[in-house]
């Protein structure tokens, strides 16, 4: 497994990582969340030795990670980059060979992935001639070409249309299912909620929440209420203790509330206050957890 332990990194006076600790096991998929500038990219780069952390360790199966381990990892950087004038197939083959594949294996794997992404007929096109989304697919193929043991993807869903995002999700699921350790960062919390069993939320350089989505939801000290009612909901809501946050969208009120708030009788009171169109009381969504964690 990948284990990141107590990483510290500063750029000048900016603290990018401040004791960041998390892990990813083989066959699992970790959604790595955090607001802009929280340190996600920096943490991912440290796995590949692209930045040198001042303190802490990054290990794979309890071994210090060297270039030999890295060759068995796949990486999709936040800043996508390929050789614009190089043909898609040649490019993938080259990256495969750099990771130690034989010429024929690399070429075969390149063809397989291009086929998978419906790019088989574009295999001899220079990458710059492909659309942005297709370049993104080639970039993903570049991370997968050598069948890595660990897959690190920095915002793989950004810029993808819903269909492409679905394909991306399928591929990540597939990879995890066959035993690859997968970690990706994202700002699309619904995608993460859909896809990942595990999440870690980073804020100001350290992990503030970590666990399986289900555990986190159940253990969360908050609940999520949605209420849509004819008439004024304000007095109704005012009767509740421990409201943390309310958002109003038209007549729909979304409320984050302490989990131990006594809700007995609330539904009856709501029905008395006016015609009830919609009411839910659930464990919080990932977005709720995220907002709570980074505020």
């Amino acid at each position, binding site marked *: 497994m990948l284990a990141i332990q107590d990483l510290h990194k500063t750029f000048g006076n900016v603290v990018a990582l401040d004791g960041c600790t998390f892990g990813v096991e083989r066959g699992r998929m970790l959604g790595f969340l955090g607001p802009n500038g929280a340190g996600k990219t920096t943490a991912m*780069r440290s796995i*590949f*030795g*692209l*930045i*040198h952390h001042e303190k802490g360790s990054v290990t794979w199966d309890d071994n210090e990670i060297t*270039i030999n381990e*890295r*060759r068995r*990892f796949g*990486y999709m*950087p936040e*800043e*996508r*980059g*390929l*050789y*614009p*004038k*190089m043909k898609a197939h*040649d490019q993938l083959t*080259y*990256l495969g*060979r*750099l*990771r*130690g594949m034989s010429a024929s294996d690399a070429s075969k794997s390149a063809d397989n992935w291009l086929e998978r992404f419906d790019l088989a007929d574009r295999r001899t096109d220079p990458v710059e001639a492909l659309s942005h989304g297709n370049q993104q697919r080639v970039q993903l193929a*570049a991370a997968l070409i050598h069948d890595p043991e660990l897959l690190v993807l920095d915002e793989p869903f950004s810029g993808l249309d819903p269909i492409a995002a679905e394909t991306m999700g399928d591929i990540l699921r597939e990879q995890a299912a066959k035993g690859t350790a997968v970690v990706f960062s994202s700002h699309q919390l619904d995608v993460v909620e859909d896809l990942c069993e595990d999440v870690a939320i980073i804020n100001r350089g350290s992990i503030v929440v970590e666990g399986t989505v289900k555990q986190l939801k159940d253990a969360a000290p908050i609940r999520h209420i949605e209420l849509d009612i004819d008439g004024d909901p304000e007095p109704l809501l005012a009767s509740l203790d421990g409201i943390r946050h309310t958002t109003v969208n038209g007549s729909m009120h979304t409320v984050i509330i302490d989990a131990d708030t006594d809700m007995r009788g609330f539904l009856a009171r709501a029905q008395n206050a006016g015609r009830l169109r919609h009411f839910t009381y659930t464990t919080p969504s990932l977005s709720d957890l995220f907002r709570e964690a980074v505020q």
Partner: protein
Amino acid sequence: MTATSIIWQVARREITERGRSKAYLITTVVTLLLVLGLVIVPSLLGGGTEEYTIGSIGEGNQPIVESAELLRNAGDEPEDEESVAISIVEFGNLEDAETALADGEVDAVLVDGSEVVVESVGGFGDSAVVSLLQRGAASVELEVIVSESGQAATDVIDVMTSDPLETTTLSGQEAGDESAGVLAYAGLMLLYIAILLYGTWILTGVTEEKSNRVVEVLLSSVKPWQLLAGKIAGIGILGIAQFTGTILVAIVALQLTGAFELPNIGVSSVVTLVVWFVLGFLLYAVMFGAAGSLVSRMEDAQNVAFPMSLTAVAGFFVSIAALNDPDGAAAVIGTFIPLTAPFVVPVRAALDAIPLWQYLLSIVMVLATIAGMTLVAGRIYAGALLRYGGRTKLREAWRSAAE
């Protein structure tokens, strides 16, 4: 996977991608055309016979013109064209002759074998024709003196066109063997051009990888110094292929036009030249690579390369000084400054003017500098490659790669 096989992969990509690129093909064709032009055009212009027309008034002009021609053509090989051909036009009076001279119909006018009239003195062609005629006239007078003593006139010409003094040199070089110097000079020019040309390729190649951000993917599985080494090897091979091709074409063309005879070059001179060519190229290539990593935009690349280009120019001038005075202070100092040594040492070696210990010490110094530079450049490269925005300072790059 071994470091060499990774370096080879990187080099191979460089060779196949760059070698197929339009830019490479175009520069190759353009250099070939340029070289062919440089070789062929002068031989078309200058290779033929110099032709003069001389106006003649009175008697005694014919022998002067004849012996001028004879003297000048005495050194020609039998199969070559004559160096000079002079024709004579007779005039009845000086006025007509001067008009013809002013109209450019004749190049000079000889009067009674004792006077020569030209349009003006100081003109390039005028002084050439005057000195030609002067020598002719002198030999006519000599002939008169000599024939009084019973010698044949042709003997005089033989003596006048021979080099009676035997030349020996302190260094034991053979007389008339200027080929070593010529070779050193040619090698020098080539090294200088190669450093600037292919150094720039390395520079922009590195900056390009940084500007299109592919470098982050590469560095996730390749060490920075391996990437740099592969790039230098690949571009080095491509560059040397282009260069060797150009040189071979130039030599063949020179042979065919007969403008130049291949000097008889010793194996050791060629070895020296090749060794120093490789050393010089590597030394500068490493520095260009490190410089390229400091900037993220192509427009800034040339600026960071300026110090290196300047050093190469300085090295070139020191080596010209060494060509004139191979034992002088400039030459000796240049030998022990690693950045100028690749320019200076081959020149001194070709002229047999460098003690063995200096030669060897200089090689060791350059090798050590290349090794040191590779480490320094590798670290700068590693530290600077992922820094974007503006130009990374050397010190920042060095520190951010600290392990």
